[in-house]
C-alpha cells in the first residue's frame, strides 16, 4: 500500500514542479517577441529610424507604419538600403512605429509624447517668422541689452536654450542609439546551453514516466 502511494505522490510533485516552472518561465517573457529590431530617435523635428535583423543585417525596402496614440495610422514609409527611414513629426501625441519586414517579421517601437513637445515649440517658432521678440525676452533681461547685441548672437535666453537643445540632440543621437541598442537582449551562450539542457531534461522526464509505467505493468 505504502509503495503504491509513494510514486503517485512523487508524480504529483513532479508534475506540479514542471507546471510551476513553465508558468513562471512563460509569464516572464516579454509580450512583443521579435527577430527584427527597430530603433527610432527624435532629432529636431524629424524622427530617424533604423531597422535590422538580429544578426545585424539591415532590413531593406521594409514597410514602416506610424500610428498615433489612438491607433490612427499617420503615415507609411519604406526603409532605404541601410535600413533607415526618417519622417517629420506629424503629431504631438506619442507615436508607435511598426516595422513589417519581409517573411513575416515584425517589430515595434514607441516614442513617448514627452520626447516630442520640445520639437513642437521649435516648429511653432520657425513657422511664425518675425515673431514678436520683445514678448519672448525674459523679464530679467533688459530690452537695451537685447537690442545692443549683434545679430549673429541670439539675444534672448529662449533662443539660446533652443539652440543648445538642438546641438545636444545632435551630439547625443549616436549615444542614444548605442544605449538603446545595448538594451536590446542579445543571445548568450548560457541561453543556448540552457535550451539544450531543457530539451534533454524533458527527455529525461519522459523516459522516467515511461519507465514508471512499464514498472507498474
Amino acid at each position, binding site marked *: 500500500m505504502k509503495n503504491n502511494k509513494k510514486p503517485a505522490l512523487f508524480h504529483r510533485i513532479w508534475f506540479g514542479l514542471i507546471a510551476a516552472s513553465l508558468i513562471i518561465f512563460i509569464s516572464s*517573457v516579454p509580450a*512583443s517577441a521579435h*527577430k*527584427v529590431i527597430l530603433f527610432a530617435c527624435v532629432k529636431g523635428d524629424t524622427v530617424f529610424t533604423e531597422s535590422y535583423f538580429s544578426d545585424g543585417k539591415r532590413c531593406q525596402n521594409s514597410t514602416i507604419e506610424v500610428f498615433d496614440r489612438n491607433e490612427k495610422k499617420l503615415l507609411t514609409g519604406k526603409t532605404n538600403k541601410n535600413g533607415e527611414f526618417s519622417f517629420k513629426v506629424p503629431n504631438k501625441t506619442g507615436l508607435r512605429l511598426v516595422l513589417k519586414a*519581409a517573411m*513575416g*517579421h515584425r517589430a515595434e517601437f514607441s516614442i513617448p509624447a514627452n520626447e516630442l513637445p520640445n520639437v513642437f515649440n521649435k516648429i511653432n517658432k520657425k513657422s511664425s517668422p518675425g515673431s514678436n521678440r520683445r514678448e519672448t525676452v525674459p523679464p530679467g533681461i533688459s530690452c537695451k541689452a537685447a537690442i545692443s547685441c549683434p545679430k549673429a548672437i541670439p539675444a534672448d535666453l529662449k533662443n539660446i536654450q533652443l539652440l543648445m537643445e538642438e546641438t545636444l540632440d545632435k551630439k547625443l543621437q549616436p549615444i542614444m542609439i548605442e544605449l538603446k541598442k545595448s538594451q536590446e537582449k542579445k543571445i548568450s551562450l548560457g541561453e543556448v546551453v540552457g535550451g539544450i539542457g531543457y530539451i534533454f531534461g*524533458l527527455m529525461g522526464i519522459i*523516459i522516467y514516466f515511461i519507465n514508471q509505467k512499464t514498472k507498474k505493468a
Partner: protein
Amino acid sequence: MHISEGVLSAPVLITGASLSAAAIGYGLKKINYDQIPQVAILSSAFFVASLIHVPIGPSSVHLILNGIIGILLGWAAFPAIIVALTLQAILFQFGGITSLGVNTFNMALPAVICFYLFSPGVKHRNSVIAVGSAFAGGFLGVFLGSILLATSLIFTGESFMEVAKLTVIAHLPVMVIEGILTVFCISFLKKVKPEILEIA
C-alpha cells in the same frame, strides 16, 4: 523563417495551431521508447541551427535542418520541432508564442513530406540514389517551408507569389547548404550507426 507575433490573424493562428496539435499527437504516438533520445538530439540540433546565420544574399537567413530531421524522425519531427521552436521563442525571441502553431506546421510538414519521399531512397544500396535522395531531402525541406510560409502570409494582404519568390530566393543558399549537410550526415550515419535510419 519564424513568423513574428502580431503578423497573422486569429483564424490563421488557430488553424495552424490545431493542425499542429493533431500532428503532434500522432507524432508522439509514433515515437517508441528507443527513439526518445534521438528525438531529443535532433530537437536540440534544430534549436541551435537557427543561430547559424548564412551570410549570403540580401536577407537574413539561418539553417533550419527540417529536411534531415524529417528523414530521420518521420512524424516524430512534429514534437521535436515544437519543443525547439518554443525554446527559441522564449529564449531568443524568435517567432512568438502565439505563432508557435503556424511556425511548427510550416517547418514540420515539409519534414514529414521529406520522410515519405526520400527515406526509402536514402537507404538504397546504390550510392548515387542514396546521395541524391539525401540532397533532395535537405533541399526540399527548406523549399517547402518557404512555400508554406508564403501561404500562411496570404491572409495578411501580401501577395503569395511575391512572398514566395522572395523567401525562396533568400533561402536558396540555405537549401544548397542543407542538401550538402544532409548528404554528409546520412552517409556518416550509414557507416557508423545504420540502425538509426531503420527506426523511423
